[in-house]
């Protein structure tokens, strides 16, 4: 007997002690065989447990036991700590004399694979990741049938011990970037991680930036397509959001719809989203700046209407705009928290309050309503919710600058944003690739979406050793 191995009895006691006061643990004994099973009832799949453990044990005689334990589902564990971890991971521990075995029967309750609510597309696959890591891996493997798809398992969180899988395609993804990502995951020091979007905040380079630096997606097809483009994907246990790296700013404006529709439509939609981006950050600010400082810029036909509707408002344009923006944000936040049935009420109340009453009561001008509403709508055009939320926040800063310094302030604010974006990096690559550093080839799939026959190269940002697609 190995010197390091504790005796069977001791080990059993150690495990028992570890699970003291865990009243959801199950002990099951087979006295005639001198066997005790320990497992969490709710972590194991009943059918698997029955097939792999209970039924064989019921049928076997004491003499044949050693033969049974030679079957592959029984893994021998070396010490108590390993056994405890296995039980926590949903395995069944089998104590027999001096030996301990664990059998995998992991099957926790999880919801079915359903459509993603935050990233729905009109045409295209509707399956999205769930909270179950194995399901998520299966969804990816089902799409990428290649042995080159490598998965590295890591564990994060001192207490939660959350599993994280780093997936990449060997020969396409850059090894240096994979190693860098693994190093960062290993360096995370925290108690627990519960969400993919939370996870990426532990590994990004600029935690104080308002912009998300890793793109996350619940869509299987998005992650699969990014994998074959040479990016590295990460799956976090218990979260339907997977992330990919390296990420650039413009990725947040592309949607799988761009690829599933004809390329001209895809291009038009991309451009529409960039226009929406400009509208959402500048439209209200521009209104404030023009009505406060730059009356010269207003077309003559609009001037009198605008001045008339402004003349009924008692506040300066800055406060007027902040008031309306705040109301819209309140409505949005309330709508997001409420169940959808009550959410409709919010829509109606908001529609009446904002659309009609505010103007009639003389709180805002009706042209501001259009500005605020169109910039709110434009912000929802951006496919990534995290990015659109960031952009909505920036808008407030621009409005205040525009209200104080006019167009000069607006330009100053935009310059600050651009400077900040230029400084951001993701896994050591520039956040503004392919604009800075400039890469003309990448532009075919950034602001526009060229036909597939022209998209022959993988994006430069992934630093792939295998530049041409289809290899």
């Amino acid at each position, binding site marked *: 007997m190995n010197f390091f191995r504790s005796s069977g009895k001791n080990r059993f006691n150690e495990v028992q002690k570890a699970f003291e006061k865990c009243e959801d643990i199950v002990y099951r004994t087979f006295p005639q065989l001198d066997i005790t099973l320990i497992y969490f009832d709710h972590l194991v799949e009943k059918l698997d447990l029955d097939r792999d453990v209970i039924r064989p044990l019921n049928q076997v005689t004491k003499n044949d036991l050693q033969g049974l334990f030679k079957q592959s589902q029984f893994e021998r564990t070396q010490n108590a700590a390993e056994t405890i971890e296995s039980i926590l991971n949903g395995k069944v521990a089998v104590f027999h004399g001096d030996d301990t075995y664990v059998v995998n029967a992991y099957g926790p309750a999880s919801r079915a694979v359903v459509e993603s609510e935050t990233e729905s597309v009109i045409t295209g696959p509707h399956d999205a990741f769930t909270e179950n890591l194995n399901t998520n891996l299966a969804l990816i493997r089902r799409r990428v049938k290649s042995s080159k798809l490598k998965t590295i398992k890591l564990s994060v969180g001192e207490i939660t011990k959350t599993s994280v899988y780093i997936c990449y395609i060997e020969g396409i993804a850059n090894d240096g970037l994979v190693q860098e990502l693994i190093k960062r995951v290993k360096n995370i020091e925290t108690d627990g991680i519960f969400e993919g979007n939370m996870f990426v905040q532990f590994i990004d380079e600029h935690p104080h930036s308002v912009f998300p630096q890793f793109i996350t997606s619940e869509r299987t097809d998005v992650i699969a397509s990014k994998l074959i483009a040479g990016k590295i994907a990460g799956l976090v246990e218990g979260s339907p959001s997977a992330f990919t790296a390296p990420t650039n700013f413009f990725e947040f404006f592309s949607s799988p719809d761009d690829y599933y529709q004809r390329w001209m439509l895809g291009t038009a939609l991309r451009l529409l989203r960039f226009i929406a981006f400009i509208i959402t950050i500048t439209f209200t600010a521009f209104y404030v700046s023009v*009505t*406060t*400082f*730059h*009356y*010269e810029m*207003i077309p*003559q036909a609009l*001037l*009198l209407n*605008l*001045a*008339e509707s*402004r*003349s*009924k*408002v008692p506040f*300066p*344009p*800055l406060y007027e705009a902040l008031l309306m923006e705040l109301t819209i944000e309140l409505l949005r936040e309330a709508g997001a928290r409420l169940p959808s049935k009550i959410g409709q009420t919010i829509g109606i109340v908001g529609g009446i309050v904002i659309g009609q009453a505010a103007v009639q009561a003389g709180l805002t001008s009706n042209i501001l309503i259009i500005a605020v509403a169109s910039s709110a709508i434009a912000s929802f055009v951006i496919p990534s919710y995290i990015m659109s939320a960031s952009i909505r926040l920036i808008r407030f*800063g621009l409005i*205040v*600058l525009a*209200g*104080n310094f006019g167009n000069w302030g607006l330009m100053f604010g935009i310059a600050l944003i651009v400077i900040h974006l230029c400084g951001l990096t993701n896994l050591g690559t520039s956040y503004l690739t392919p604009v800075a550093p400039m890469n003309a080839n990448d532009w075919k799939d950034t602001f526009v979406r060229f036909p597939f026959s022209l998209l022959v190269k993988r994006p430069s940002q992934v630093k792939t050793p295998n530049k041409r697609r289809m290899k």
Partner: protein
Amino acid sequence: MCGVLRFACLFMALLLLCGCSADKRQLENLGFTNSISYDLYTEEDNEERKLLVTTSVPNIGTKTGKQREVLTAVTQSSKQAWVKLSRQTGRILVNGQLRNALFGMELAAEGLMPHIDTLVRDPSIGQRVNIIIVDGKASELLKKDFPDEPPTGQYIYDLLEKEEKHNSIPDIAIYSFARDLMDEGIDPVAPIIKMNKDHLMIDGIALFGDDRYRTKVSFKDALIFAGLRGDLNQGELNVDFKDANEIESVTLSSVIGRRMVKVKRVQNGEIKVLLGLHFKGSVLEYIGSRELNDTKDIAFLEGQLSDYLQDEAMKLIRHMQTNQVDSLGIGQHVRNSMRYKEWNSLDWKEAYAGADIECSVKVTIINTGKFQ
């Protein structure tokens, strides 16, 4: 952390102190001058000449029931007038939305330079302000309300923009006026408007020598004048001529005109200028005895038109020469044909009056309309 705190303080300051800024131009507090007019003003018992400045400011909303406010001031200079005008209204008077600058004929004859200078120098005034000469007193025209039309300032603007599109008056933006004024090779022009009983009307084109009004071209000749001045892309031409003792009349529409200028030096150093005009258009109306289906008749018509237009053009050129106004920009072409030194030593104003300027007009009828 300190940085975040500092940023938060700055942000709060921006929010709370935004009312303290003095250079704000909040829309509802402004009076946008739409039109401004300048006239000479002489009191009866006083010989001193003053400036009468009138401005029209559209009202916002329906607080007063009137669509616009008209302010008047009598001063020495146009900037002084501005101060005096502002004193009369509760709104901040601004001129960033100025559209029309009207000048009385008398004042125009005295020279517009100081006023043009004010208008061009102020950065808030756009380059597209219309320069307009009024036959009579400009302030009277601006004060008058025309019941069937939009507020007077807007009415003038709409009227002139439309006419400018149809080439019956030249480009009237202050940009072109100031540019031509500064250019030695061309003299500026501006439209003349006149008051009817209850409407405005374009009376013709004022021709300036330097900044002074000299003479005018009547509205009838406006298109020919436009054709002489440069290329045309659109226009309408009415021509009456005699054919076998009967007066016939042709209207050409969609007229495209091309101008060509040739400057020749004759042996003794004298300058000879050849202006070639080519008009193309379709017949929209024809009152006369000929069949327009026949190519011979069309050729005849083209000949008649060419002759008539050539006569008219020559009359115009002679008229300008006698008045010493080079509104066609012939000086520019002359300048381009010689060395700078030579141009410098040439007194073009003098030379222009006696220059040998010839004009030949060719008319092509593209089609003759639907009636066969």
